[in-house]
């Protein structure tokens, strides 16, 4: 008799617990319009706002005179764990006739970058920063190797 009692009790508790879960699922089925969670990615591109700290790719900042703040000190190159950055320097002749080390080409391999932010931390002049772009797919791998300083750009006055 005790066995039968337990059995019936178990059946009822099973039904009750299932109904409880079903009730919750049903609630969400009825209220799905108020709580919309999923965003359809390519359609929401216009209203998609990424936080300002989001790490998409490394870019070099240029002002309106096409001037950057990179001195070519290679601190970022040394800080990078994956050899993503390669800096080629040249020697500029200053008006006083002295030789001065300056940036020639800032090569950035996007395909090797893990967005660890160590280069931006290492930069003493804040010449580079992380951009919010994230759609990096291209058909040719070579397109991922980028030169970050714009053609004809030169270093800002007063940055050592």
């Amino acid at each position, binding site marked *: 008799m005790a066995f039968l009692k337990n059995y019936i009790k*178990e059946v009822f*508790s*099973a039904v009750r*617990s*299932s109904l*409880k*879960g079903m009730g*919750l*699922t049903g609630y969400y089925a009825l209220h799905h319009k108020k709580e919309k*969670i999923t965003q359809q990615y390519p359609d929401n591109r216009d209203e998609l706002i*990424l*936080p300002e*700290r*989001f*790490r998409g790719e490394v870019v070099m900042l240029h002002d309106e005179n096409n001037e950057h703040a990179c001195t070519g000190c290679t601190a970022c190159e040394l*800080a*990078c*764990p994956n050899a993503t950055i390669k800096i080629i320097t040249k020697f500029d002749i200053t008006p006083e006739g002295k030789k001065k080390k300056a940036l020639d080409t800032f090569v950035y391999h996007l395909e090797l970058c*893990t*967005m*660890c*932010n*160590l280069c931006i*931390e290492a930069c003493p002049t804040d010449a580079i920063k*992380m951009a919010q772009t994230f759609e990096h797919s291209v058909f040719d791998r070579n397109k991922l190797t980028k030169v970050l300083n714009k053609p004809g750009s030169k270093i800002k006055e007063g940055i050592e």
Partner: protein
Amino acid sequence: MYRETQIIEDRSTVSPTGVDLEGADLVINVGPQHPATHGVLHLVIALNGETIKKVEPHLGYIHRSIEKMCESLSYRQFIYVTSRMDYLSSHINNHGCALCVEKGLQLEVPARAQVIRVLMDELTRLASHQLWWGAMAMDVGALTPFFLAFREREMINDIMEETCGARLTMNYMVPGGVMVDIHPDFQRRVKEFITHFKNKIDEYDELVTGNVIFQNRTKNVGYISKEDAISYGMSGPSARGSGVQCDIRKLYPYEVYDKVKFDEIIETDGDSFARYMVRMKEMRQSLSIVEQLIDNIPEGDFQAKTKAVLKLPKGEFYSRVETARGDFGVYIISEGGTTPYRIKFRSPGFSNLSALDHMARGGKIGDLVAIMGTLDLVIPDIDR
């Protein structure tokens, strides 16, 4: 010496896959590309009818030699690699490495950085347990919880994205503190999350914990005793389900864990349901830790001043932290240079996986996935 020809000869006495059959009827392979193993884990299972005679995990499919890689990276650089091990608790892995380097440098971390670190750790633990809860319910056949879990996890990911700049592999902990200060919106958004999640965790219980089907699938399944759990080296929630006191946050408190109030959750049943309950209760504890700290972030620096090039003195350093899966240890041998001479990571998943054979043996094949679900395995953490 064990020569190659001898290995081939020995194999002829067992099975082509190298498993001792022990009179089993059938040997089946689960994985390495099977959705239920949550990664590239290869299990060779010897069966007798439906009863499991032996489970043998074959590892190495996602081995990236992270330990060897770290030997060529400097003490600032190697931390980011460890986010790729246990990617669900990447903050806590980074934390362990940063602690070990700080121990070598004898560096004092500012109070603000300590609190931020603990906050991030607990949020990561919550996110990890949420994903585990969804995946665990999916393993036993319920699909809805997975979507509910991801809804809450998305809130934590958004908070991480805003402050750290990335969603999964943050690289936020650096030797001496944290990389950048918290975002001005951080506290408001975490408080929003706390009030949101407090209601939702009751829904979790309503939907899965109380369900009779779920309870029948997990109760008295995958039993491991306290002694066996210790001898297999299990740690974290999986071992605490068997009554082992092993919470590093309580036993060897680091940062501000000795100042916050929380309980070490211990269940004594040792079955799958006990391990499930430990994680469910741990989520509430993590929530209470976040609640205690979020309004009490002290002012000050978020990073201690360090030299440009870090050099650890000659010697051996070991630090351990409690990740969402258990005891994570970092062991550095330094020769006094800028790169470590040797690094060893003690990952919790490896030891927890070794107990799978003991748990599943004698059980049914249908229960194997449920047992694996309660172990909360992350395969890149096991292989490294």
